[in-house]
């Protein structure tokens, strides 16, 4: 595929096998489906001690809680003599209607369904000669306990965080939003992972078109496994040719629920301790849940500060390169003299030096992230302080550019969304290169290209720059005065308080 040639069409995927496993549902057929699986267990039981009525119990070790299987299924089966004296058909019916102690009993008739139930933590009870089975919910509830959100620190607010278990996450949402209008629809994604994906919205508040569109997009995902966040994100967003996030992710149930209350649509995925909210527009990525916990004036000031930091992190390195290389008259003379003195013995051009340091900054950040926390801190100290100051002393880099890159980097850390911060880091490089090519002219062209790019983005039919397009306030207002849901969410019920 050459640069100037059109993108070649990709071969279509092979069709899905429906049903995935063919044939009648029997314990033998199920055994063949789980051939060579050591966790597959099969146990014969004589009902009520009656050897003439033998059944087979099937379960996957590790997926079920053994005590439940023993106490609530095997014990009554083995000890209830009345069951053993009943005929096969009557015994089946009694078990189905509650003779065994399980929260839910379901009759399954296909191999696909039986396999799915086993994997979900059910045990299956086969009657001899019947091509059906009873499925009892005895699944284990082993999961990570609800902790504090590590990436979205809550200073003054709820401290709970989403976990990997989908049901826990939906329950967390229900605990915050007790309204019966909360809808939870489920779809399964991934041919191999068969991951449940739940779509949540508040009926009567969320725009039904957004819900339908999201359901359509999730239904269209045809991948092997949904194991990473990108497996969902990149399939549901409107465009992939942008580094800017178009769906908002959060660890915090309170933020997730606030989004639902605004009229946004949420997505929860089994195995991913995050909730997604769509549509996601630029202003959403610059707000934090803390904004609603703090005094409105403080919160508004902090939001303005974040917008300023956004500009600083984007443009400062480029502006430095442009001013030093092309427009020294813009720099006050005392500062210009300091920069000149600092750069006197540095062997690299200002552009190369800036790009080098920006790259070093990224390397240090990446190294610090991937290492264990204790070593990561050491790397940051070694890289930032020791190597940085040594490089300045050795005149490999100038202190001015070190300060510029550090300020730009720190300004980037004020972004509440790491996805947005990542996009800004990419554009920062591009803007610095453009400034190195043509000074302020290049920087302005880059800024115009960025503005054009952002203006062209949409998230579920909502313009990405909506805070600037429809006059909605950029900063938080006093909550009693904030009476309407955002217009761009097209809620049928815009009023949110009296």
């Amino acid at each position, binding site marked *: 595929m050459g640069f100037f040639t059109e993108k070649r069409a990709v071969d279509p995927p092979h069709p899905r096998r429906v049903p995935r496993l063919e044939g009648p549902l029997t314990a033998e057929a199920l055994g063949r489906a789980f051939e060579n699986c050591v966790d597959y267990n099969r146990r014969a039981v004589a009902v009520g001690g009656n050897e003439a009525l033998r059944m087979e119990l099937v379960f996957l070790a590790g997926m079920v809680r053994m005590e439940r299987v023993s106490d609530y299924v095997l014990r009554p089966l083995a000890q209830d003599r009345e069951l053993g004296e009943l005929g096969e058909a009557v015994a089946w019916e009694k078990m189905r209607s509650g003779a065994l102690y399980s929260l839910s009993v379901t009759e399954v008739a296909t191999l696909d369904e039986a396999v799915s139930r086993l994997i979900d933590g059910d045990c299956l009870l086969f009657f001899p000669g019947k091509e059906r089975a009873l499925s009892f919910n005895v699944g284990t509830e082993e999961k990570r306990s609800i902790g504090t959100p590590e990436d979205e620190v809550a200073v003054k607010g709820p401290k709970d965080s989403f976990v990997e278990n989908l049901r826990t996450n939906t329950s967390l949402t229900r605990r915050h939003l007790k309204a019966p209008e909360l809808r939870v629809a489920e779809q399964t994604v991934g041919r191999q992972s068969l991951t449940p994906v739940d779509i949540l919205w508040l009926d009567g508040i969320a725009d039904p078109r957004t819900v339908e569109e999201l359901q359509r997009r999730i239904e269209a995902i045809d991948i092997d496994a949904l194991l990473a966040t990108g497996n969902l994100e990149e399939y549901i967003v409107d465009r992939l040719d942008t580094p800017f996030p178009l769906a908002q992710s959060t660890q915090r149930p309170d933020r997730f629920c606030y989004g639902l209350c605004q009229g946004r649509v949420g997505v929860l995925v089994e195995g991913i301790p995050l909730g997604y909210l769509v549509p996601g527009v630029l202003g959403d990525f610059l707000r934090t849940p803390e904004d609603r916990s703090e005094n409105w004036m403080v919160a508004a000031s902090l939001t303005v500060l974040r917008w300023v930091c956004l500009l600083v992190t984007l443009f400062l390195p480029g502006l430095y390169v442009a001013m*030093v290389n092309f427009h020294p*008259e813009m720099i006050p*003379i*005392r500062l210009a*003299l300091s920069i000149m*003195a600092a750069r006197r013995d540095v062997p690299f051009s200002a552009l190369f030096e800036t790009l080098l340091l920006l790259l070093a900054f990224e390397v240090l950040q990446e190294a610090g992230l991937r290492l264990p926390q204790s070593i990561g801190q050491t790397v940051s100290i070694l890289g930032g302080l020791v190597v940085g100051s040594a490089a300045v002393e050795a005149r490999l880099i100038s202190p001015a550019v070190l300060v510029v890159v550090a300020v730009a980097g720190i300004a980037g850390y004020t972004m509440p969304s790491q996805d947005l911060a990542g996009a800004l880091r990419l554009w920062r490089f591009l803007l610095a290169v453009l400034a190195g*090519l*043509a000074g302020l002219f290049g920087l302005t062209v880059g800024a115009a290209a960025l503005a054009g790019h952002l203006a062209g983005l949409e998230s579920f039919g909502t313009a990405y720059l909506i805070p600037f397009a429809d006059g909605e306030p950029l900063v938080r207002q006093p909550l009693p005065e904030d009476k309407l849901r955002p217009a761009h969410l097209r809620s049928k019920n815009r009023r949110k308080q009296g």
Partner: protein
Amino acid sequence: MKRRVWAAALAFVLLAGGAGFLPRSREMERLKLVSALAVDGGGEVSVTALTAVRASGEEEPETFSGVGGSLASACRNLRESSARRAYLGQTEQLLLGEGCDLEQTLDFVLTDRELRMDASLYIVKGNAGQVLQASVERAGEETGGRDPRGRTVGETLARLAQEEYALIPALAPGGDGTAAPAGWAVAGPGGVAGYLEGEAAVGAFLLLGGGAGEVVTLSAGAAEVTGVQIGARDGAVKCRLEARRVQGEPGLKELEAWAAANLRAALSSGWDCWGLDRELAAGRPWDWEEIRGVDVRLLDVEVTGRWVEGYGP
């Protein structure tokens, strides 16, 4: 399609860069920042530049010169006179010698890519280059300073463009050859029309609204001027003067008389460097043609003084 657009944009940038349509970069450390530039005219134009240095740095300020048939060629020779190119974009002070063609020099500043309109302009009574060279040692300690009397090239050009007189601070070589204040030069459409010195210079500064901080010695003590407001109405220049007693018990009437004498001395030159005619016409716009170019020597002077207390300016 999108890739082709990007490819075309890239090709355009590369071609534009190669053809010189894009700005050219210069590494700052290879420049000599010029903080003051002296221009002397006559047969050949001579420019002398003083480099800016950090007050705390080890580097000494230096002067270097360029000579040419025109100001443009002299500046070009100046820029190329050393390995590190002289950069005029940071020039804060522009000193013009007596023989220098004011109009042409200001026109050059207007069109030059580096020289700035906010550079302070001075007229030197004598050779500006020599004054600048004599001021090298002092300049090393004063880089980046701002003269409260300073008139910028932009301000001067704006007045001259309206065919009005403009005040430019005048300097003269002092005892050690360095620049010392020498009143004001009055620039007119034809060049420097004359100078205001002594009482007239003080009056001229008051008419500009300046003079705050001036300590006036009076018979019963001394007063410090803290504020001056000038207006022209009904055929008179009205001055509201605020001052603070700094020594003894000076009389307000005496202070008002001091200000009135200075103002009259400035007006007696006959040059309206302050736009007094426009101020007079603001009250009677229908009489603009009559008021325009009014003889300022005929205007009355009214001074109202007031003592102020406190630590304010």
